[in-house]
């Protein structure tokens, strides 16, 4: 018996060494951690339980039968993050460059199946070279199996992808179908075809970083949701993110103890909106001042900054925040902002995370670039997402809510549950100047007359009371009491139950 246990220990020790110390050192020299180190930081101390440690590939082509390494390039298993169950797979670059074989894919699909069956989140850590070419179609088949499970898990359990090294070819589509993608600056990249192929096909010379680095994907393509400085920072932030997310689509949001009083009054909010309607202010100040402990996990902080999305808590319970940002492009809705927010709203709706929407929007961005780029359909995505969402929806208009953008931003008319406005709110078809110039075109030559018309329009519509008189706004609230009012509204809506008509699935304008 003793020798058998010793053999187990030996085999384990060998498996844990992955591709060997030389490759581990090489990985470290590149500023990257190994798969097991990453999992160690991600999970609670000692909570990780590894599966399939001894799995080896069964390939025989191109001399593969001579090189077998236990684990076969991916570490899989489960553990806890602050006591909550999480499944994980992490590509091991030290073993066959993390490339995907049939056996490797089977390890992944095993934990995917477990995660779906047991309704707990799954985190994938990517650092790999793509398909194992020696295996041919077996590798491709393996990818397909992984993809299918990504799709089936979508909307059932949170799926998170961490890109911590190369991620190319077939490897990119699994992360692409997960809920969030996080990258590490300077040491990770993602693309369908790499710089060499690009050079051959299009004659374009481009580096991996320029083609698919963290900066590109967080600022230009919006593929990635956040980028971090290094592996440790990214992994610790994943722990923080998981504290916001529900285990699955039926569990409800987690609750974190907090001492932050829900009735905390903040008088500085009374002066947040400047007297001058054209002067910007920072919507993030409002977010940080009303949520629990000023703790806000922003999603896509570097992309379409004219809208802010992210997770926060009220009374310890997670909410999703969508907020126009007057500091950037006056908070206008354009294609990028609409797509960004729509995807975030749909994530929240999938997982029963209430939505708090903070509105200061001058409308949709005009111009050929926007129209040619499909603003109509992109804008419709956000409208669709808000309208179909059945989670509690609390909306606050701080200043402008003009035109169609008013409707889109979780208004009463698309099933907003509680719609508040600050006294500084202006709800109208458009700004007073534009409106007067259209309504009184004949008086355009007379500046005094047109000014009088502008003032008249302003007086009538540049306030929240017309909307409040009609019940489109439930209550005009004092800015200083915003936290209390939103917290109460969310509390009141805790047992909200609404079902959309039965359908196979909807047909959102993709």
């Amino acid at each position: 018996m003793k020798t058998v246990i010793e053999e187990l220990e030996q085999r384990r020790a060998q498996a844990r060494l992955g591709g060997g110390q030389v490759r581990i050192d090489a990985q470290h020299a590149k500023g990257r951690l190994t798969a097991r180190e990453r999992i160690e930081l991600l999970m609670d101390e000692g909570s990780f339980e590894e599966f399939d440690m001894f799995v080896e590939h069964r390939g025989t082509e191109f001399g593969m039968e001579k090189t077998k390494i236990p684990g076969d390039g991916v570490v899989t298993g489960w553990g806890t993050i602050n006591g909550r169950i999480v499944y994980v797979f992490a590509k091991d670059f030290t073993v066959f460059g993390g490339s995907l074989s049939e056996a490797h894919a089977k390890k992944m699909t095993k934990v995917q199946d477990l995660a779906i069956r047991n309704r707990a989140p799954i985190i994938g850590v990517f650092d790999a070279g793509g398909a194992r070419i020696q295996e041919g179609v077996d590798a491709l088949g393996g990818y397909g199996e992984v993809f299918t499970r990504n799709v089936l898990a979508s909307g059932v359990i949170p799926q998170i992808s961490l890109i911590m090294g190369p991620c190319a070819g077939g490897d990119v589509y699994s992360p692409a179908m997960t809920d969030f993608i996080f990258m590490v600056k300077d040491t990770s990249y993602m693309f369908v075809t790499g710089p060499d192929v690009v050079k051959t096909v299009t004659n374009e010379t481009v580096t991996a970083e320029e083609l698919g680095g963290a900066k590109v994907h967080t600022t230009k393509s919006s593929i990635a949701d956040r980028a971090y400085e290094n592996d440790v920072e990214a992994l610790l932030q994943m722990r923080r993110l998981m504290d916001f997310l529900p285990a699955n689509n039926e569990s409800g949001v987690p609750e974190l103890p907090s001492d932050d009083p829900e009735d905390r009054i903040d008088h500085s909010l009374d002066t947040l909106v400047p007297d001058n309607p054209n002067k910007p202010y920072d919507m993030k100040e409002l977010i940080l001042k009303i949520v629990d402990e000023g703790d806000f996990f922003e999603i896509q902080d570097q992309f379409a900054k004219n809208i802010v999305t992210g997770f926060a808590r009220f009374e310890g319970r997670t909410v999703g925040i969508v907020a126009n940002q007057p500091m950037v492009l006056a908070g206008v809705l354009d294609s990028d902002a609409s797509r960004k927010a729509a995807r975030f709203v749909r994530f929240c709706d999938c997982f029963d995370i209430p939505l708090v929407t903070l509105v200061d929007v001058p409308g949709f961005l005009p111009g050929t670039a926007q129209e040619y780029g499909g603003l109509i359909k992109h804008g419709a995505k956000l409208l669709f997402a808000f309208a179909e969402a059945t989670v509690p929806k609390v909306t606050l208009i701080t200043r402008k809510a003009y035109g169609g953008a008013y409707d889109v931003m979780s208004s009463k008319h698309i099933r907003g549950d509680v719609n508040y406005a600050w006294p500084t709110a202006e709800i109208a078809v458009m700004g007073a100047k534009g409106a007067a110039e259209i309504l009184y075109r004949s008086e355009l030559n007379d500046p005094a007359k047109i000014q009088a018309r502008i003032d008249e329009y302003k007086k009538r519509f540049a306030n929240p009371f017309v909307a409040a008189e009609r019940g489109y706004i439930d209550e005009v609230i004092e800015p200083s009491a915003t936290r209390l009012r939103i917290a109460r509204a969310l509390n009141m809506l805790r047992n909200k139950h609404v079902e959309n008509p039965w359908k196979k699935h909807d047909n959102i304008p993709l």
Partner: protein
Amino acid sequence: MFKKILIANRGEIACRVIKSARKMGIKTVAVYSDADRDALHVEMADESVHIGPPAAAHSYLVIEKIVDACKATGAEAVHPGYGFLSEREAFPVALAKAGIVFIGPNPGAIAAMGDKIESKKAAAKAKVSTVPGYLGEISDATHAIKIAAEIGYPVMIKASAGGGGKGMRIAWSEKEVADGFNASRSEAKSSFGDDRMFIEKFIVNPRHIEIQLLGDKHGNVIYLGERECSIQRRNQKVIEEAPSPLLDEKTRKAMGEQAVALAKAVGYDSAGTVEFVAGQDKSFFFLEMNTRLQVEHPVTELITGIDLVEQMIRVAAGEKLTLTQKDVKLNGWAVESRIYAEDPYRNFLPSIGRLVKYRPPAESCVGGVTVRNDTGVTEGGEISMYYDPMIAKLVTHAATRDAAIDAQAEALDAFYIDGISHNVPFLTSLMQHPRWRSGNISTGFIAEEFPEGFVPRAPEGAQFHTMAAVAAAIDHKSNLRRRAISDQMGGKPVRFASARVVHIGKAVQRLDVSGGDRAPIYVTLVDEKGVRGKTLEIISAWSPGEPVWTGTIGGAHAAVQVRPMLNGVNLAYRGIQAPAYVYTEREAELVAIMPVKVPADMSKYLLCPMPGLIKALHVKEGQEVKAGDNLAVVEAMKMENLLRAERDGVVKKVNAKAGDSLAVDAVILEFV
């Protein structure tokens, strides 16, 4: 007594005056410009009157508007505060014409002291000690030597028409006078075309000491001790204290009596201040008289227990001083720091913007220690470009100078401001300075001790241990919370090791941390050799999200400012500001592998300082530029900002063109 007074000022001093008036049962009227619509002084006053646009020249400085505001509200008297109209002779004259009382000295006294030369003459006549010098024409070097010998060395030789240090010499001996006189004279001739010279005593390492006076309309004048204001930066007072660590009882009495003599000579009848320059040998010489309430008056109030604003109002109403000189007792020590909206890390450039967070330490009077904060702003207020950048005066009082400085240091530690840059880090750092603490100071203190400007210190010693303990306590509390999250797996709760490695800036501290969420936390520091130190009990009511951690660490009180960052907190304590990360031992091992990223050298780039529109580009690729040359114009918020070259160079690449809309820190130009 008046029933209603108007305060012709803004900011902290307007609030200060309102407080005393309210205490006396007098109604108050505030005046405000467009920029001050939501200001604290407007909120505090019983009534307020709008007096025009933001620029002071069109609002706070317009005498007619103040007079009209008095008439409109029925205010019987006006307190001018300091600055603005406080020392304009025309103001009390105009008020008197309208039958309104000026809460300040009579116009004659203002006029007498307003002119620098006239006031010196008046001082000399009243037998006040003035700087010895020779104002007549000096014929040659021999004459100069004779005069210098009469005055006593060292002396300063100055060109009558001089300025900017030209034609000026300091001489410590006959030879230096001889050489210096001729050199200065020829310099004066070539620079100013005027070779008239004069000589006066040069005071080595001078100190700024001033006497607070209080007079009434019945010929009584008393002095309320002195204040020392030697800690100045470019003639702007930064820290004041009362009493002065230099003076003895005899010198104090001599200065006080001379000041009173001067005041009596000019018929002074309100609160006022006689400023002296003092040598380290306790010699002192008249500088000027300020015919108003001084910014730094609170230090005098705290050591005398006299409310100067109340006294000013009473004497203005014609009351006789109820105090006599022998009633004035100096008690304990008071220190005042001026909190300015200026960036100590960027050569004290003024900073404007919204006070996103403004949490001054609580005012208190506990165990013989008083903390007072005279402030004119509130959280959410706006620091505008139109007025003085001083936003508050933090004053502490205790039995001894050391205790008052300690109290000041701790109060500054808790002074939390976000949204604008401010000098609190500089002030807290200054409070630790051994030379300041020794009292061996002069007006050159800041220039001598901070020749390179303010460079923040790296954490070390006991302060580093305090910061490490606080970082560990914060992290531990947050961990305990996170481990109490709902929806956990059944069975035993998550366990975690107690060993932690704290990184603060570049310094590392190993420690053990344990304890409860609502119970004391215990931290044991472990040194590099693994030797465990004493276990410190940490007691604090701090909760995540609060800006200032206050509590005791092994019985010692501390206030540390906390600003959240990714995976850590930025801590500010005793002028040290540093990011703090608390890792498990394993995390620390792996952090060590992480690549060190050197921030890109941006000195070769011209960055867009704010989100805005490029209005114009003044340079082309390959063009040579000199420091100060115009490079580009960025329009933001309808303001055109001219960007200039910081040093000589050649433009390598132009990355933007006129009409481009750029984000903050976008690269406009690259230099070779």
